[in-house]
């Protein structure tokens, strides 16, 4: 594949010798373009060109170029191979059993493609030679544009409004919010403390008395009581302390169990 604007030689080739026609290698747009140029040099109507001669010219040209060890783009070589095939078909008479297309047919196909390419080129130049807008034909130089006054009607509901307000106030209010750290007594912790407080005391003492120093903070009171009570039940189960409550909602008394000597 070649990009259209690239030369198909790495360097512009020096003019080849007199026998081979000099070809300006700059700006060929593919093998068909080169062939069309060669055909035009036969200075006859494309319909009357000798396809055989054209094929030979092309092959000779490519050969010369290759002898000079100049890289030729692949599609030029593909065309060369096809033209070599065409040449052989044209020179060898067609056998009746031969199912390949005849040399004449291949030649006609090539002629058609050349004619079509030339026709498109002619059409392009005819198009460009037409009086074109902005070159020979003009539109209104100072158009008077149609002004469209867009009156915007804004849509918003009271709900949108309130939500927008509340959203902002919440955003503002929660910026300095720090989640509350809660002190929680674990059961193990409560049991250790309770055992230490009861110590060797065999006297009935109210639980809250033991815990007095921990109950000072209101936030912690609930957890301290709950955990201590739960641990005391565990200690009773283990037979380490006795627990007594004389009235409903009355104080809980506790003491070391006598049988359990340290």
């Amino acid at each position, binding site marked *: 594949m070649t990009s259209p604007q690239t030369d198909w030689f790495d360097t512009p080739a020096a003019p080849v010798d007199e026998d081979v026609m000099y070809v300006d290698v700059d700006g060929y747009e593919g093998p068909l373009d080169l062939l069309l140029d060669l055909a035009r040099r036969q200075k006859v109507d494309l319909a009357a060109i000798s396809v055989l001669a054209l094929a030979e010219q092309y092959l000779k040209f490519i050969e010369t170029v290759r002898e000079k060890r100049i890289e030729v783009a692949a599609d030029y070589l593909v065309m060369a191979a096809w033209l070599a095939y065409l040449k052989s078909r044209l020179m060898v008479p067609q056998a009746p059993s031969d199912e390949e297309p005849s040399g004449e047919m291949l030649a006609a196909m090539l002629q058609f493609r050349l004619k079509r390419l030339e026709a498109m080129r002619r059409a392009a130049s005819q198009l460009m030679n037409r009086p074109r807008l902005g070159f020979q034909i*003009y*539109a*209104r*130089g*100072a158009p*008077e*544009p*149609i*002004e*469209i*006054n*867009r*009156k*915007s*009607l*804004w*849509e*918003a*509901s*009271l709900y*949108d*409004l*309130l*939500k*927008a*307000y*509340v*959203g*902002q*106030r*919440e*955003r*503002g*209010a*929660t910026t300095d*919010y720090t989640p509350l750290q809660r002190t929680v007594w674990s059961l193990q912790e409560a049991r250790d403390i309770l055992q230490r407080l009861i110590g060797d005391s065999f006297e009935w003492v109210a639980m809250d008395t033991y815990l007095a120093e921990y109950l000072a903070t209101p936030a912690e009171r609930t957890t301290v009581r709950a955990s201590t009570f739960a641990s005391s039940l565990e200690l009773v189960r283990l037979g380490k302390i006795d627990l007594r409550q004389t009235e409903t909602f009355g104080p809980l008394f506790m003491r070391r169990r006598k049988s359990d000597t340290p």
Partner: protein
Amino acid sequence: MSEVTERHLRILEALLFASKEPLDANTLLAYLGEGADVHGLLVTLAGRYAGRGVNLVRRADKWAFRTAEDLGFLLRREEQETRPLSRAALETLSIIAYHQPATRAEIEEVRGVATGKGTIDLLLEAGWIRMRGRRRTPGRPVTYGTTEAFLDHFGLEALSDLPGLDELKGSGLLSNRLPPSLQIPLPFEGALRDDEDPLEPGDEDVEDNS
């Protein structure tokens, strides 16, 4: 009319049509050749277009085609479109509604971001807010408040219809986890508050730099 005159008229017609700017007689003459009576030709041409949809008009010493004045309305069209208010505009509007009279700095304090001039302009243009006066503080910033059109649009009879803290909480719009210090102000409905001065002449047209 002679053939030469007709040809000249055609050329003038094409030149004046294609030109971006009005053309003067001298410029036109260059296309007609010496001796042509450009002025006479232009008057003839203007006569031909009189009463048409497009007229040849004279502006100072120059000539140009222009849409006939009585058809000018064709070139202007009104289109209405409804668009949802942007979040920034909604937020600004709601702050103005609750905190009025509010200065731009106060709006920004609540929003926590700078409020573009475009947002205020848009709300002014929509007719939902207005400049109320100027705060009697250094810099004398403009105070904003809502309009009757605002009440109309949002279906409120008065500013006092805006739900307060408890109502907002009750509706679930405001969460219950907010600090007790959070207050929702009662919008001020009167003409001017103690700390406001009236607007001065020209205030409404002036860039608000508060």
